[in-house]
């Protein structure tokens, strides 16, 4: 019985990427390569942002059709 209309897979993906990026950033920081640690954090944020933007676009289109706005 699914109560959520949202695709749960994407949530797991985002959570997984978040965990992996934080571990990677910590490991690179420990090894002394601070710039690369910050770079991977940035890349992770960008990737997650792209995923989230897709969902937000879907949300907007659904809202438009729901209220039959232009």
């Amino acid at each position, binding site marked *: 019985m699914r109560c959520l209309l949202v695709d749960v*897979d994407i949530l797991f*993906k985002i959570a*997984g*990427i978040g965990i*992996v*990026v934080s*571990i*990677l950033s910590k*490991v*690179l920081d*420990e*090894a*002394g*390569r601070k710039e690369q640690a910050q770079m991977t954090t940035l890349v992770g944020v960008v*990737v997650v942002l792209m995923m989230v933007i897709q969902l937000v676009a879907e949300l907007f289109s659904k809202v438009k059709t729901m209220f039959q706005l232009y």
Partner: protein
Amino acid sequence: MFLKLIGGAMVILSCSMIGFIIAASYKQRPDTLRNLQAALSMMESEINYGQTPMPEALSRVAKNCEGEVSELFRKTKTHIISHSGFTPSEGWEMALKDFSMNTALKQVDIEILSAFGKYLGSTDRDDQIKKIELAIAGLKQQETIALEEKIKNEKLWKYLGVLSGIMFFLLLY
């Protein structure tokens, strides 16, 4: 569903292995440098105290070493005693080329060995000893640097391999 899991496992495994292989090369460099130093100092004793001729000295050293260092000395000896008229220096150079293909040593180390090889067998005994000691000193310096690099990099690459595998798996799932 199952196929996805198997594919994902393969992605994670292969990325981890790439990371492990890179980490292993960082681990191997100090060891190879140490073996080379031992082999060169063995050669020094053979030349200095044993007065053994070059091919026999090379094969004795090769017998007491293991792995690629032993191969290097054995190949040099083979080139020298073959009837193609190679000088010891040329024989060393050719064996060094094969050696440098499959080794974890960097260009700096190969250059030290190559510079040493130019004088191999062409000068008198004391000069040979000096050249050997010079090479050993150079290798020891590189070994210190290599140990530092190893401590920094080995764990890092292992983690990087595994984590990037997991990342690719998550992205492509």
